[in-house]
């Protein structure tokens, strides 16, 4: 494995690489880069109920994106488990604190809020806003979409509110 793969990628390498997924998906199939649509596709596939929001042909609209999402999971596995010498250590301790993100921590208040409450708000918020970091912040802003600019302001307003007004009291010292 080349040595560049092992070091932590600087922002000016990682950022443009992420940005290139926008033209790649457009050129392959005229698709707009965005992950959170998959949450809707999964609900539509598994438990649409009688809800209008989930009553559409998810295979037609979303199969490509669900396949992309399966790739993200596989890619996460490969990047973390390829045993390369001298690689920077991508481990549980470097990506998520054990005090919050283990099965044991799930049973604590701060773990429950980080995993279950946070996850729920990610799902609800992305569907209400019609996009997440990839769909609004990257695809939307790159296309000079005003709705995306408003959404991104919202992302940061919510993120800062949670960081300064909620998390200090919930997480405490790690």
């Amino acid at each position, binding site marked *: 494995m080349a040595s560049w793969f092992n070091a932590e990628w600087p922002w000016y390498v990682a950022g443009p690489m992420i940005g290139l997924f926008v033209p790649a998906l*457009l050129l392959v199939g005229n698709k707009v880069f965005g992950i959170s649509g998959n949450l809707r596709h999964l609900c539509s596939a598994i438990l649409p109920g009688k809800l209008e929001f989930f009553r559409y042909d998810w295979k037609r609209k979303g199969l490509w994106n669900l396949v992309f999402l399966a790739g993200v999971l596989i890619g996460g596995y490969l990047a973390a488990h390829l045993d390369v010498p001298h690689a920077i250590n991508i481990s549980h301790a470097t990506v998520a604190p054990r005090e919050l993100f283990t099965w044991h921590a799930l049973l604590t208040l701060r773990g429950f809020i980080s995993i279950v409450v946070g996850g729920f708000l990610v799902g609800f918020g992305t569907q209400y806003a019609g996009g997440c970091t990839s769909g609004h912040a990257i695809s939307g802003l790159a296309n000079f979409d005003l709705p995306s600019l408003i959404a991104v302001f919202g992302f940061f307003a919510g993120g800062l509110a949670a960081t300064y007004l909620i998390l200090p009291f919930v997480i405490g010292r790690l």
Partner: protein
Amino acid sequence: MTETPLSDFDGCGSSGSDQHIRPTLLAIYLVLGIAFGVVLTRSEVLSWFRIQEMFHFQSFRMYGIIGSAIVTAAASIAIIKAMGLNSLDGEPITIPRRPFGSGIRYALGGTIFGLGWAMTGACPGPLFALIGNGISVMIVAVLSALAGTWAYGWLSPRLPH
């Protein structure tokens, strides 16, 4: 650039076309997804610590990554438009514009997502990449995100958009 009616817009990850997809194209999407998962991991974008640093303004890193991703994507879109390129299956490339409506959904929905982003330290892509990284409890976070998605689907007729 075409405008999509609100009712038809399927949110983040919408497609310009509804045609059935050839298996060869699906293989390309899989490879691209794998590449994205690798990038999210090796760049540490999926790290809870990097997200906390961002919201505490302790590091330029995440701003640099998101900012340069936007600039790269915008330049790419400009080139695609200027050259009038088609996608692999010969369709003209179009990016649907989101209808503005009252704008409330973007402000309020965005804020709700932002709260969750800081709490989990992950947006939807990293949630899945973290499971691949072996943080298996993130399966619960994904299930909870699906519950949140379903709750939105249930409440959406009564929410301001």
